[in-house]
């Protein structure tokens, strides 16, 4: 996808403007912008006040544009129930999606404009069809990239991202759209970061209280955006899945609640390798895809409610399901902890870390105490406890840290025992185990150094006191009797 985008960007002329023209416009814009900023900073002209107000408005808009929670998508995440005549629900069973799907692969201008119109018409007829919305969002996203528009680009990107996210909320749970969504999300974050950086730079040295406040706020958001970009690394699992299942029913069809419930029941009966009744989908595949997608969504704060919904839909009738659900909850908790850590909220981060560690310890206590581990998600709590201990090392007092490190290490020892039969788990654990040992040693030596320094200081103070007393005594002796 990224390659396509690069190729499209290189293509000239684009959107009716040649590369040279675009460069010229950009230079002109930069010049205007610089003049405006110089004017604002000097504060001498009549337009200065209006300029500052515009800047504040711009900054507030950027703050509002940060995708840090479901509020980014608006108040409602579900489509409104639209009904036909006499209250009957509109059926979209006859809708043929194939041309629209082909259109997002094909960027020939003539065909695209025709299909775009057809898509708009279909959306008017079926405003609650999530897949149509997803395709429309992708179409818009591609248009934004190809046209190279500058004005209101952020707005347009936000609209397409929101439409895509809402389509996921409304049942468009497919590997293909998940990949599209993440690509759009990352592109949006990158553009937003760029805008924030430019705006905060231009707001430097403007002696206005509100500007200063907003600059600080944007700085925190910038750090959060850096962290949110990390979702790119979590794409590995989904990409692998897409490659493995390429051309199969699993990639291009959403998973329904009924399917997931049926798959869970089949897992309980030990029939997970069989197809779900009336479908050609294997129960084990359904469960795996569902959890992989939910785990991916757990790394995107605007999909927080979707993650909750997915977790509720998965019944807790088997340990494997419970452990995977808890793995996703823990991943969500880790994101929260990381966001707090990145934003510099130490107290909140410490609380999140403690809460998370308790949650993971409970998972172990309730489900893994005597388990023979054969699946990766079964070792997840042990690994996560160790990881959090290492990450939160500076948040806890030394006495607590010592206890945390030793319990995390004790937990990791399970990975080296014969109870753990997962290939590569021991190596994974060994790395963390060594890091924890190193942490313990360094903390101990730091503690020892501190104690030694304190002792040396006490000794020096004592020596000083003795010297002072001796000096005072000597001074007192030398002092004439009349003055005493």
């Amino acid at each position: 996808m990224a390659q396509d985008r690069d190729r499209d960007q290189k293509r000239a002329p684009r959107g009716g403007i040649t590369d040279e023209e675009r460069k010229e416009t950009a230079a002109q814009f930069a010049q205007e912008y610089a003049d405006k900023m110089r004017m604002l900073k000097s504060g001498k002209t009549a337009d200065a006040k209006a300029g500052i107000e515009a800047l504040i408005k711009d900054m507030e808009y950027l703050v509002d544009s940060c995708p840090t929670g479901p509020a980014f998508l608006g108040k409602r995440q579900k489509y409104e129930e639209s009904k036909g005549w006499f209250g009957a629900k509109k059926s979209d069973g006859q809708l043929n999606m194939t041309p629209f799907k082909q259109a997002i692969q094909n960027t020939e201008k003539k065909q695209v404009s025709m299909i775009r119109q057809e898509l708009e018409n279909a959306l008017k007829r079926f405003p609650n069809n999530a897949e149509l919305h997803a395709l429309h969002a992708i179409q818009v996203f591609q248009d934004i990239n190809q046209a190279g528009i500058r004005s209101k680009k952020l707005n347009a990107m936000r609209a397409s991202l929101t439409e895509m996210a809402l389509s996921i909320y409304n049942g468009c749970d497919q590997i293909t759209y998940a990949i599209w969504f993440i690509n759009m999300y990352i592109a949006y974050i990158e553009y937003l970061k760029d805008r924030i950086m430019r705006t905060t730079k231009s707001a430097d040295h403007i002696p206005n209280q509100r500007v200063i406040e907003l600059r600080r706020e944007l700085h925190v958001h910038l750090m959060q955006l850096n962290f949110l970009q990390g979702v790119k690394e979590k794409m590995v699992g989904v990409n692998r899945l897409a490659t493995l299942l390429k051309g199969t029913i699993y990639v291009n069809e959403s998973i329904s609640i009924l399917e997931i419930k049926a798959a869970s029941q089949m897992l309980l009966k030990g029939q997970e390798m069989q197809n779900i009744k009336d479908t050609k989908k294997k129960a084990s595949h359904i469960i795996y895809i569902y959890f992989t997608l939910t785990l991916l969504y757990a790394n995107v704060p605007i999909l927080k409610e979707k993650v909750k919904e997915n977790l509720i839909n998965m019944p807790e009738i088997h340990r494997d399901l419970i452990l995977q659900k808890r793995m996703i909850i823990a991943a969500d908790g880790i994101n929260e902890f990381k966001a707090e850590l990145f934003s510099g909220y130490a107290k909140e981060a410490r609380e999140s870390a403690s809460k998370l560690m308790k949650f993971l310890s409970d998972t172990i206590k309730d489900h893994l105490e005597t388990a023979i581990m054969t699946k990766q998600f079964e070792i997840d709590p042990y690994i996560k406890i160790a990881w959090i201990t290492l990450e939160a090392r500076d948040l806890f007092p030394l006495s607590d840290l010592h206890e945390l490190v030793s319990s995390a290490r004790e937990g990791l020892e399970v990975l080296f025992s014969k109870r753990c039969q997962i290939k590569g788990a021991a190596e994974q654990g060994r790395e963390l185990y060594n890091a924890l040992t190193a942490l313990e040693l360094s903390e101990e030596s730091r503690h020892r150094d501190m104690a030694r320094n304190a002792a040396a200081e006490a000794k020096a103070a004592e020596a000083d006191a003795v010297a002072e007393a001796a000096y005072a005594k000597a001074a007192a002796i030398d002092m004439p009797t009349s003055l005493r």
Partner: protein
Amino acid sequence: MGGPETAPSPTTLQEVVERVLELMQGRLYKEALKILVIGLKMDRPKVERMITQRFQAALKIPDWEEAITWGNALFRIKGEDADLANQMGNCARQLDKLPLANDYYRHGLKQDPNHKFLRMNLAASLAKFYKYDAEVENALAMFDTVTPPLLPEYTKMGRFIDRLAEDGSFPDFVALYDAVFQRLGEPQLPPATQLLDDALATNLYNLSLLCLKNGDGDTALPLILRLRKENKLFNGLEIMEACARHCSTNAPTKDRIEGLKELLLQHPKDRFLLVNLGLLYREDNNWLQSMKYLLTAVDLLEQSQGLYGMAEQFQIAEKQYQAGEKEKSVTFFQVVAEQQPRIDVYSRLGEILFELDRFEESLANWLLLKEHFSETPKGQEALEKAYAAFMAKADQVRTEAKASDSVHLYGWAAQIKPTSEAYKSMAQIYHLLKDKDRAYDCEQKQAERKREEEAEALNNEREKLVAQGKAAIQEKKYNEALDFLKQAFILKKDKDVFVLQAYLLKNLKRPKALAELMASWKAPRQEQEKTESEQV
């Protein structure tokens, strides 16, 4: 944060059974146990029967996790049953829950102190010996007829003793050893050769064993200490030393136990020490400790296929390697390496694993060798060989167009010996793979390493010239010496070389050359001082 769904408590026995079975199927054991407790209150005999059947079925499969859940429920009803405690202990041990297993065994022993297997299983649990019931009994049976001290066997006689025996001057084995012993006592021995040394050491070892078997610890002790000092690879020198000390003092069992325990801290995997400690505890009527040490020894002996001594293991491993049985020889070498980290063991292991294309394992051995013996010339030589082997293999793989494999091999070679050549090859391959970051890293390392290598080469060259200069002075070839020293001085303005040159020029009465030398000595120093002052 979420938790399992809570269903309403069952009200009838049928509901209890259905719910428990469903939860067990979903591997939700804790929940199932809670429901079982409710069921027990409803109809104890019926539920007890069901639990017993399920417990036995789970043991048969075996599904240890399920078994321990059913067993736990059963244990609430029949807590005084020693057999059940034994089975539960075994279950816990299968799940690697050793403290829990110990608790079950101890509880069982309280109920029935004479239980056939409980004490053996408890000892096995303490020794981390993963066998159960009759298997433990069988393992312990092999020591039934053994009495302490258990000493190693005589080693084969070396060529030296063969020659002496052929001589016919010695009527029997003891006389022969007497002769050897007398010879050892002589202050003026003929110049040592490796063969003679080995032969003497072999006989020294056999002699000390003979002394120990005759109860003469006083004579044996200095011989054993000498062998240990020389770091010879003989079996059971530790236990021999311990026996020699105790033979001479005839110490009580408890003191001997303490002595052996101290030695065991230094050599925790010495099979002789473990067995003797077990036997001494048996003499002292401490059955639990006795079984614990004996079982630990059995575990180790199983790994080394019943062999006590490392020397034999090394020989067998070597023979197997020569016979082409590489996989088997690896197992033996690994056991030796675990107990006696030595250059030859590590390098042999590294070589064999390399030949078997198990490169990462091979690398691990070379790195261990590097960690322990990189300072010794033998160690350096071995590492050099390993580096060359990895580089050659990497080159070969590269020609076969397996870029990612070859880059790994170059990386491993660089781990053994970081050279600019290895980093250069890695950078080239990363460029091919379009991994710019890694390529850049490797280029940086290559440049750094190249600088170091050049400096090293220059230094070696200079040292060689200085050595040649000094040798020429010894031979009174002063002009030649001056030439060498001059060249060395050009490479680096070194104080020692300067002094040597000045000394020679002064004695050769060449004031002009001496003045020039002084000028060239001062010039760079002045420059250096100037730059330093500028920096300040």
